[in-house]
């Protein structure tokens, strides 16, 4: 492969921390980011827990009311077009650029592209449309569209950072930012761009999270210590979260040339559809199984080379079972036994954010030589028989790392990461 994409910068605004050191510590120590919440001021809602994003506050759709931690700065010119998750994204990107040793002024060089993923902001869109209805179309926030629809991240950030390379947003629900990262890899592998900024983000609002209650997809367990327990036989749904994660992906030669520290190599990716249901995963995990196989084939490695799988498992009864069966087909049945855990046990499910967040966790695992344990797992689902689900984090270099994501409509995307040579 003439052009190899590598990761040189990470930025985190997550329920388990807003900087690399805190996130790494919490992954190692299996400290979750959940807190009790009362959505929509309604104590009767069965959903009692969320992966809260500490230090940020968005009490209204008016940016003048918004607050974020003092160590981040968000320009007013940018702020007026953002949704809450856009603020998270700016803060995450600032970290990632600093870590990669890049100045914002370098991003308009044409060699840098930007791929983003979020569901848009149901919170902002709801308020925008309510005003439009109330005034029968005679009033509307001029920034209402760009701050709310899917694409809000790439609209705002591409303009602000003067990106003149490839710019796109990706929408495949909970696989969205995994698609963004996969296609960013292709931009570099095809020689079209030398650097890609990849950002996944979601609001942490009732509008984004409680909506999933209608699907019966959320956990009703009020205990923050056990509500999210992927692969456990007592799991009863996912716990929602928001935030943003930014990755700086560069062509290896460019990264080396400018002396950037390479944290992980991205050596393959793949995707496959379930062809099955709009919301439910294929009962045997057919699409995810194929996506994993295509990823291994793309990287020209066999299953036995994989040391750790960061599973998509969100803690829903059906989804985790499908993934367990897909993992057994790809690994156990081939005599391979990678460690498997879902870090959503600690963070909650970040929807469009999930794939980028977990790719960043995989990068930390490779860069800092540890494997996050399967938190909150006490009684594994029998479907997991044969999978290696370590109950505690392991201080061991993981070898090749596979990152799994699945979204609505049966979109399945995987990435394979490697320690730099």
């Amino acid at each position, binding site marked *: 492969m003439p052009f190899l994409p590598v990761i040189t910068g990470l930025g985190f605004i997550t329920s388990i921390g807003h900087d690399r050191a805190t996130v790494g510590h919490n992954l190692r120590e299996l400290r979750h980011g959940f807190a009790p919440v009362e959505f929509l001021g309604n104590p009767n809602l069965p959903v009692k827990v969320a992966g809260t994003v500490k230090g940020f506050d968005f009490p209204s759709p*008016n940016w*003048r009311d918004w607050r974020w931690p003092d160590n981040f700065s968000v*320009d*007013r*010119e940018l702020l*007026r*077009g953002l949704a809450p998750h856009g603020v998270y994204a700016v803060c995450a990107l600032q970290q990632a650029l600093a870590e990669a040793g890049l100045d914002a002024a370098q991003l308009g060089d044409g060699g840098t592209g930007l791929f983003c993923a979020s569901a848009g902001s149901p919170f902002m869109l709801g308020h925008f449309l309510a005003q439009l209805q109330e*005034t*029968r179309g*005679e*009033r509307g*926030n*001029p*920034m209402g569209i760009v701050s709310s629809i899917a694409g809000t991240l790439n609209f705002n950030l591409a303009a602000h950072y003067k990106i003149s390379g490839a710019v796109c947003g990706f929408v495949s629900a909970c696989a969205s930012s995994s698609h963004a990262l996969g296609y960013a890899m292709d931009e570099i592998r095809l020689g079209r761009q030398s650097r890609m900024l990849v950002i996944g983000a979601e609001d942490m609002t009732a509008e984004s999270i409680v909506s999933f209650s209608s699907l019966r997809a959320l956990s009703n367990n009020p205990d923050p210590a056990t509500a999210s327990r992927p692969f456990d036989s007592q799991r009863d749904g996912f716990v929602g979260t928001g935030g943003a994660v930014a990755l700086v992906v560069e062509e290896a030669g460019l990264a080396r040339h400018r002396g950037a520290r390479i944290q992980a190599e991205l050596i393959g990716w793949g995707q496959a559809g379930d062809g099955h249901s709009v919301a439910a995963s294929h009962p045997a995990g057919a699409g995810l199984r194929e996506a994993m196989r295509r990823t291994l084939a793309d990287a020209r490695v066999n299953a036995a080379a994989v040391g750790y799988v960061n599973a998509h498992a969100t803690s829903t009864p059906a989804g985790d079972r499908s993934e367990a069966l897909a993992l057994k087909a790809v690994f156990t049945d081939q005599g391979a036994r990678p460690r498997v855990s879902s870090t959503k046990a600690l963070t909650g499910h970040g929807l469009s954010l999930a794939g980028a967040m977990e790719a960043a966790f995989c990068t930390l695992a490779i860069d800092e030589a540890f494997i996050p344990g399967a938190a909150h797992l006490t009684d594994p689902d029998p479907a997991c028989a044969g999978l290696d689900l370590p109950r505690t984090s392991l201080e061991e270099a993981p070898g090749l790392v596979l990152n799994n994501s699945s979204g609505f409509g049966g979109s399945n995307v995987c990435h394979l990461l490697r320690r730099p040579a």
Partner: protein
Amino acid sequence: MKAPAAPTLPATDQKDRIKHLPAEARAAFQRFQATCDPVALDPVILAILEDFIPRPPARPLAELPGDTRLIDDLSFDSLAIAEVVFFTEDLFGISISNEEIVRVRSLADLRGFIHAKVAAGPAR
């Protein structure tokens, strides 16, 4: 083309609408409501501009000459101007058409325009 009438909004919105403006501007607005004195409008207009300006200016707008241009000198763009227009329409109960606003280029233009509009319109 006749501009459409501004939508009717509850008067109780007004206090909430200006809560983000500085105390002096809020006091000036109350003075204007009580006296209809157009002089009281000026601090309100400048505070609205400062509230919507994309990049905060190096000096307070009150210190800048009247011929300072909104777009060329003050970083306003069409979106920010649209925000100012909507806010001003709702606050003063006036209606501003696109044709009118494109003729407003400077701080002095805007001041004169809003004075004339408010004098002619149903200020609340």
